């Protein structure tokens, strides 16, 4: 772990725990409006709900995840005030990390506990300021109340997202701003919905005796649990389906490879390797999640046209950079056939286009035969495929460093400079090639 990351993680952990301890000891519990009639039952209710909902980590299609516990912590902050809400958040986070996500390192648990406590206390502070010095008094009488409710939800959201993404940015050595914006945009709609449920639950809980006569906690629990469970379940199904889809492509492409090339060493796993390399390079360039996914699928499928026109990986040709006339025609046809196979699947329309142009030389110009613009993803696929071909050649495989040298030589002619540059940077980051080589690469271009 990087030093800066280590320092940050320990700082958050210690600060969170100290904050909870300080507020527990000196926090002004007496000032809470509910203190007079507050019973252990209220705290128990929110602890149970918090533990239950915090276990529901709702995954999201384009990456990222949101914990349904957000709704409970927010409701609890509104109804019981920040000190007890922080206490609930600490217990729920501990429970989730220890009982459910068994085996995660202890410092991560401490970090999770720390940042959720700090976030809840910060949101409570915002509420206190905006409500003009009142806490745990949820009401909706005028615009100031609405501002306090929205403002404190925003602080809870912002503080959670910042705490987590700062760690991500430090780990990936990426700028905080872009990581933060990328992730916050994804989780904002879900967290907004959860905050809405939190507000609703706080108000329902406050009025439970008049509204539900005695079995109020059961109704409030249903309002919390039923919609979030459905949300959790639906998202899980969706994510599982995406995983199954990915695996299906891999399996069918592996089947094609073993069927058509009778298991030739250099072609087995070619689709999967090209997919991984090209999508990692796309990631390196910060392309959108959709584009990265299309490129990965196109990587799996780029040689699917082999079912009609088998192209042995033309690996013997790296001595003389040009392909023979016959090989070039064959390559062209197998790319077109691949495109025709995939085109009927609406979802893969963009993938089909990437496959269609994956064999184009960069110096042949930016347009395909029908005048369409050749997508950048196809350029990346070409580089990834070339790299895999020369490093896996049955005759004389090149070392990764030599392969990179060759790519750099051919960049600007056979390959797009930007694609080669991103590809080499990605390899260096993954420590496949020497960092030195990677430093050299842009200069060589």
């Amino acid at each position, binding site marked *: 772990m990087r030093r800066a990351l280590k320092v940050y993680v320990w700082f958050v952990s210690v600060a969170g725990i100290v904050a909870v301890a300080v507020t527990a000891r000196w926090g002004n519990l007496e000032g809470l409006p509910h203190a007079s009639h507050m019973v252990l039952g209220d705290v128990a209710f929110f602890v149970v709900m918090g533990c239950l909902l915090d276990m529901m980590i709702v995954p999201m299609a384009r990456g990222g995840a949101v914990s349904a516990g957000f709704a409970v912590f927010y409701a609890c902050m509104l109804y019981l005030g920040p000190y007890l809400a922080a206490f609930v958040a600490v217990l729920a986070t501990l429970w989730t990390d220890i009982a459910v996500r068994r085996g995660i390192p202890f410092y991560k648990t401490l970090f999770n506990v720390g940042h959720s406590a700090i976030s809840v206390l910060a949101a409570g502070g915002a509420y206190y300021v905006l409500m003009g010095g009142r806490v745990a008094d949820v009401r909706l009488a005028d615009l100031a109340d609405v501002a306090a409710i929205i403002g404190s939800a925003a602080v809870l959201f912002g503080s959670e997202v910042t705490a987590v993404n700062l760690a991500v940015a430090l780990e990936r050595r990426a700028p905080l701003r872009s990581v933060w914006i990328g992730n916050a945009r994804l989780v904002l709609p879900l967290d907004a919905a959860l905050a809405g449920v939190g507000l609703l639950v706080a108000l329902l809980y406050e009025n439970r005796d008049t509204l539900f006569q005695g079995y109020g906690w059961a*109704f409030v629990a249903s309002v919390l649990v039923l919609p979030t469970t459905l949300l959790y379940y639906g998202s899980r199904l969706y994510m599982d389906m995406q995983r199954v889809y990915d695996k299906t492509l891999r399996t069918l492409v592996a089947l094609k490879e073993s069927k058509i090339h009778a298991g030739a060493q250099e072609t087995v796993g070619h689709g999967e390797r090209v997919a991984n390399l090209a999508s990692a390079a796309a990631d390196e360039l910060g392309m959108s999640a959709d584009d990265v996914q299309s490129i990965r699928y196109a990587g799996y499928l780029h040689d699917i046209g082999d079912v009609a026109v088998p192209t042995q990986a033309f690996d013997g040709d790296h001595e003389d950079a040009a392909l023979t006339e016959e090989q070039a025609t064959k390559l062209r046809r197998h790319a077109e056939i691949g495109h025709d196979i995939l085109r009927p699947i609406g979802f893969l329309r963009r993938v089909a286009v990437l496959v269609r142009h994956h064999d184009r030389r960069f110096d042949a110009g930016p347009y395909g035969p029908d005048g369409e613009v050749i997508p950048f993803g196809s350029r990346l696929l070409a580089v990834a495929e070339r790299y895999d071909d020369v490093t896996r050649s049955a005759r004389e495989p090149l070392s990764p460093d030599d392969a990179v040298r060759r790519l750099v030589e051919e960049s600007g002619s056979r390959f797009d400079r930007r694609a080669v540059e991103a590809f080499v940077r990605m390899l260096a980051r993954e420590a496949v090639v020497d960092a030195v080589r990677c430093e050299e690469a842009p200069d060589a271009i």
Partner: protein
Amino acid sequence: MSKLSPPLRAYLIAVPLLGAALLAWLTIRLAGYPHLKLIEGILFFLVLTIIAAQSPVQLPRGGIMSMAFAVGYACIIIYGPAVAAWVAVLSTPWLLRKSVWYRITFNAGQYVLTEGLAGLVYQWAGGEFVALSPDPLSLRHSGAAIILSGLTYALINSFAVAIALALHEKRRLLGTWRVGFGWMGPRYLALAPFGVLMAMVYQLQQLRYVGVALFLLPLFWARYAFKGYMDMREVHQQTVEALTKALEAYDAYTEDHSDHVSELAEKLAVRLGFPETRMEALLFAARLHDIGKFVMEPVLNKQEKLNEDDWALIKQHPAEGQRIVAAIEVQPGAASIVRATHERPDGSGYPDGLRGGQIDLAASIIAVADAYHAMTSDRAYRRAMPEHSAIAELARGAGTQFESNVVQALIELWQQGELPQPQRRDHAASA
């Protein structure tokens, strides 16, 4: 509408008329209620219904899923039958705006009857309408009414649709209803609590409509995720079909084989009363029953006579198929079917040598469909067999090589002229 049969036409006219009569009566009964409040309710639930019914989730074996039932149910509990019926009348033309007019009038009438009668039952059973009563909703008092009106809603709604379907497809009413309700029943059960909770949330005076909206927001996200899931399932199926067909095309002789086998397998399964819940697994297995052969290509294409090792390898192909299908299927079930497609009732099949009762019906169905299609289509080494000879061949193997009742079902299909006819259809297409 003139193309429809007379009984169906009569039904499609009767339902809107009955609906209109009920709506008129319900509206007259409203005389003593606060009008502004009712109009407010109609507007709010109109918007909510339209949002809830937007782009519903398409279920895999037909049918749709949306939150509209929960919203309608909540509307009954909050405002009563008249408002719910008006919301139904006003929302249907918009929701079905791309349909033929008699579908719109029928559905509007059907929803008025469903919601109006469910509301009347609620009232009759002593239920309180949340918006019109000074007291909060009490389950002790209105619980029975809530359950009864929910049942009424589900029954009227499902029967109204089942009658139209049965008249249209000339099927038996109860059978049609059971198939439809098989998937609608659990859906009602799952959505009903959301309707009740919506009514409860509405009572929160500080929020009212905002509260209902806040309650529904996570549900819309859930719907979005479900829709993504269903779309992805569809894409998955399309992809598997396209890629396996591409792989099949590599061997010209098996081209379209799996299309025909799954088509015939579905017909056999329906005739045999194969459970609808496992139909998807059956069809997936039928499409991929031969996939294990792909990896055995070198042996299968051998020119010389096959030796014992080759045979041992070939007998492993269903197991290989099971492995591949297990890796690519959405829900478990198809892989084990694929494994058993070469088993025989007399125990002489492979790879496990299972006997009669141990063999999954789905696998027996695919075995018969596979054999029938293989015999009735041209191969490189022989011409296609006429249908009756293929049937006779299967009948000879009934009980030993093939499951008797599946063969029986095939014979029945043949006698009724319902067998798909791959060869002849090709000629017809070229003619």
